[in-house]
């Protein structure tokens, strides 16, 4: 018994931080319908500021006040005010993409501003970590553990008191049911929403600062895991039940504590299963709890009053403009190809080649998000699957890399199809969460093994040899041509599907799943198909990426890349194949250009920050901000050429006047 407790007790403080974040997640989700991925980033940002301030000799109390009491709620207020409030309640994809963008962009921004030096654990808030305050069933409880539990308990008591007793609490609970009904009652629901955002952001900040002293150094990854663990805890309470989320958080911490106590540190359980527990729990809950499956169906009785989204750019772009853009694009592409083959220096040729390879991977997002209408957060995992299969086959069985890449793509296809099975009944947010859980599962429990992700030093992936031509030379021009050919083939493939009957089915399913099913379209078949094909594209791109880099490690394909990929493609345009190519090329070119900047500005984070902030416009420009600008400028130029004549077609930036309430019937 005492061993059991001595293993369980150290898990409690971790569990308490999970519980605080879980509570914040539930609070925002229930009040605003936004599932705030950004909480992990917010917790990290507060922890970071706290660490920096205390590192500079600021006393603990003012550092705490600045980082948690002032900054955290301020961030919540800004997020609500300038971002999430502008997104229609029913636009799940936009809310999701925005939250992912913050999750990706905020930590990079923090690093840009403060530099990337290693930061060591900050001091605790008010108790001495070295001091054992008492023994719980003969297990020593130190200051750090005690403090975390006390703070969590205080936060819980404060929040429940506010929710239960005050008028504000009542309005928040009403806003949870339907902000718009509340507004009809004459209550300014936006003020309530602001308060909810500030409150939950405060909790994220608090959890961040409590967690910081528990790790030797400050790493964003720990906060990403904090988020997922909190997610699993919140899912235990169906994202609705605060007390259950609390219990779930603590339970999860205890289970982890027990696991790390009982499994010997070298066992497969310790290295593989233990870190994956929160993701496993989350994945299982998502698939099995009916309430979580229904997250997608807005419970706001007035949500049907939203006008339909404006028709996308593809539907409204006039034929002339289409031709101009296409011609311009082709001229540019041709110029680029000729340049690479003639005068472009080696490092730029390499960059552009990797742009082509990224474009192939990004096409997988065109398929799954642009055509399938679902956000997947595990595309980098599929890419990794393709790359590792190709690499392992080449290293251990001497399979030529091009053949290996195809096998890798096939392998990813199978993984994607299998991964789609548990996701069949999910869509929107729960589906995205499930893909994230799968990505983390792979990162923690599959890729670290050398039979999968290769030896610690990296897995060697050879360059292709075609006939007597080896592309293994230092110049990557041969590889450039190869990647170009493969990319063109992939683009043709995706375009074919877009124009085919199946493409129409996907359009229908994306626009209105229940409408599409009501005419006989099989949603499961479509989902498996899209997932499988998209995974295959990602896998193929991943294998080529490996071959281009010649050495890969699991960290080249971890879940953060999946998030970045989504953000980048969404920024440039997720609906067209051109969007994917622009995303691939833009991503690498921007990074290469920025690398000329001095110091930390050139370290690579800036490109991600730029893309992340552009992705925040997704709600207003679902066609992609680049696509939108392109249209704007071509139209301007065209009008100039026509001497101020009538524009040949109108810009569909606002929905048609008489809203056709395109949405699902209220019994999804």
């Amino acid at each position, binding site marked *: 018994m005492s061993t059991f407790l001595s293993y369980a007790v150290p898990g409690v403080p971790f569990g308490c931080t999970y519980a605080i974040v879980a509570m914040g997640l539930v609070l925002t989700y229930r009040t605003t319908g936004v599932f705030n991925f950004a909480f992990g980033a917010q917790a990290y940002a507060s922890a970071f500021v706290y660490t920096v301030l205390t590192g500079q000799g600021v006393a603990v109390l003012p550092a705490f006040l600045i980082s948690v009491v002032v900054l955290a709620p301020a961030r919540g207020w800004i997020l609500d005010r300038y971002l999430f409030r502008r997104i229609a309640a029913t636009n799940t994809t936009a809310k999701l993409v925005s939250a992912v963008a913050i999750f990706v962009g905020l930590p990079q921004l923090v690093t840009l501003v403060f530099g990337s030096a290693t930061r060591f654990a900050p001091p605790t808030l008010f108790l001495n970590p070295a001091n054992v305050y008492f023994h719980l069933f003969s297990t020593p409880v130190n200051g750090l553990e005690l403090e975390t539990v006390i703070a969590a308990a205080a936060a819980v008591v404060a929040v429940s008191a506010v929710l239960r007793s005050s008028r504000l609490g009542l309005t928040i609970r009403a806003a949870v049911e339907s902000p718009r009904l509340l507004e009809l009652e004459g209550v300014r629901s936006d003020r309530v929403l602001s308060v909810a955002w500030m409150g939950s952001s405060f909790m994220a900040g608090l959890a961040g600062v409590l967690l910081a002293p528990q790790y030797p150094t400050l790493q964003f990854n720990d906060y990403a895991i904090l988020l997922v663990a909190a997610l699993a805890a919140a899912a235990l309470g169906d994202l609705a039940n605060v007390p259950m989320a609390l219990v779930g958080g603590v339970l999860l911490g205890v289970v982890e504590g027990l696991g790390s106590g009982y499994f010997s540190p070298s066992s497969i359980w310790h290295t593989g299963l233990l870190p994956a527990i929160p993701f496993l729990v989350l994945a299982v809950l998502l698939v099995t709890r009916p309430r979580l499956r229904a997250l997608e169906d807005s419970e706001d009785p007035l949500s049907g009053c939203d006008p339909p989204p404006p*028709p996308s750019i593809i539907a409204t772009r006039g034929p002339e403009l289409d031709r101009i853009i296409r011609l311009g694009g082709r001229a540019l592409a041709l110029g680029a190809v000729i340049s690479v083959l003639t005068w472009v220096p080696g490092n730029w040729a390499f960059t552009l080649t990797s742009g082509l390879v990224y474009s192939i991977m990004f096409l997988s997002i065109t398929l799954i998000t642009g055509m399938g209408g679902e956000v997947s957060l595990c595309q980098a995992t599929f890419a990794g699957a393709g790359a590792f299969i190709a690499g392992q086959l080449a290293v251990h069985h001497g399979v030529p890399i091009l053949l290996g890449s195809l096998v890798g793509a096939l392998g990813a296809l199978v993984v994607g199809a299998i991964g789609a099975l548990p996701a069949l009944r999910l869509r929107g947010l729960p589906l995205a969460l499930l893909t994230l859980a799968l990505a983390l599962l792979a990162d923690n429990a599959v890729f670290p093994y050398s039979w999968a992700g290769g030896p610690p030093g990296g897995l060697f992936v050879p360059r292709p040899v075609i006939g007597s031509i080896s592309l293994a030379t230092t110049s990557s021009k041969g590889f450039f041509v190869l990647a170009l050919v493969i990319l063109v083939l992939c683009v043709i493939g995706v375009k074919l599907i877009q124009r085919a009957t199946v493409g129409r089915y996907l359009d229908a399913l994306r626009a*209105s799943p229940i409408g599409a099913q*009501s*005419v006989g379209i*099989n949603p499961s078949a479509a989902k498996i*198909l899209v997932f499988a094909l998209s995974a295959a594209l990602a896998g193929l791109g991943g294998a080529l990426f490996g071959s281009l880099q010649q050495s890969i490690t699991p960290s080249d394909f971890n879940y953060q890349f999946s998030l970045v990929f989504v953000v980048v493609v969404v920024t440039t345009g997720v609906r067209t194949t051109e969007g994917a190519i622009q995303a691939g090329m833009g991503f690498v070119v921007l990074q290469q250009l920025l690398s000329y900047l001095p110091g930390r500005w050139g370290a690579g984070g800036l490109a991600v920050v730029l893309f992340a902030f552009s992705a925040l416009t997704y709600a207003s420009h679902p066609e992609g901000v680049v696509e939108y600008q392109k249209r704007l400028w071509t139209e301007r130029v065209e009008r100039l050429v026509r001497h101020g004549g009538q524009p040949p077609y109108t810009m569909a930036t606002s929905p048609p006047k008489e809203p*056709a309430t395109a949405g*699902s*019937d209220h*019994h999804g």
Partner: protein
Amino acid sequence: MAEGLAVEGLSVGFGGVRALDGVDLALRPGEIVGLVGPNGAGKSTLINCVGGQLEAAAGRVSLDGAPLDSMPPYLRARRGVLRTFQRIAVFPELTVREHLFVAVRARRPAGTRWSELVDRAQPNEAEALAIEEALDRVGLRERADVAVATLPLGACRLVEIARALVGGPRVLLADEPSSGLDPREAETLATVLRSVAGQGTGVLLVEHDLAMVAELCDRVVVLHVGRVIAQGSFAEVMADPTVQRAYLGHAA
């Protein structure tokens, strides 16, 4: 074996609310049955159960004697159970013609073929004929090639009707199809429903416009808090005191 749609003992609850409580209903081929009742009576819930969008807690739904209960909505559609939605569920980016193409193609009982992954999404001859006929019926020929997002609500409702009837349904479930229609569109709707029924389709019409119900329906079923409280001809039903009480409130 009964021809047409048969609903027996259908019950659905939402938390504490009994939305449907042992509802029986029969819809023979070629018959137009009006389903009326005050707001919240359970009309849409009934349609959702028949269409497969909602799982019933108890009861059976069958078409021509074959049970539909365990079928997902898309299989029911392929069997010929088609519907429209009270809150419309069109595909804004597709044109009217594309709506009809998707609908007529997807209903093919064999399902999707691999070749449809790379074909040009063109209707074959029979499908093209069905599409043109449906377009003419609802009078949307001139607007056949515009994105539905640009159409007003009334036209969207007609698109849904056309989408449901393009493959020749066995059963058409229309959930308040006339709401948001202008008088001319409502006239078109009435003509369409009558001619669809004339071709042997059973039509279940949920409608608040009682004049339209009186004009179109062979039989009327009155639903009130999840129970059938009366059925018969329009005149019979309207003369029923229970129905009057349900509509006018409990004071009457």
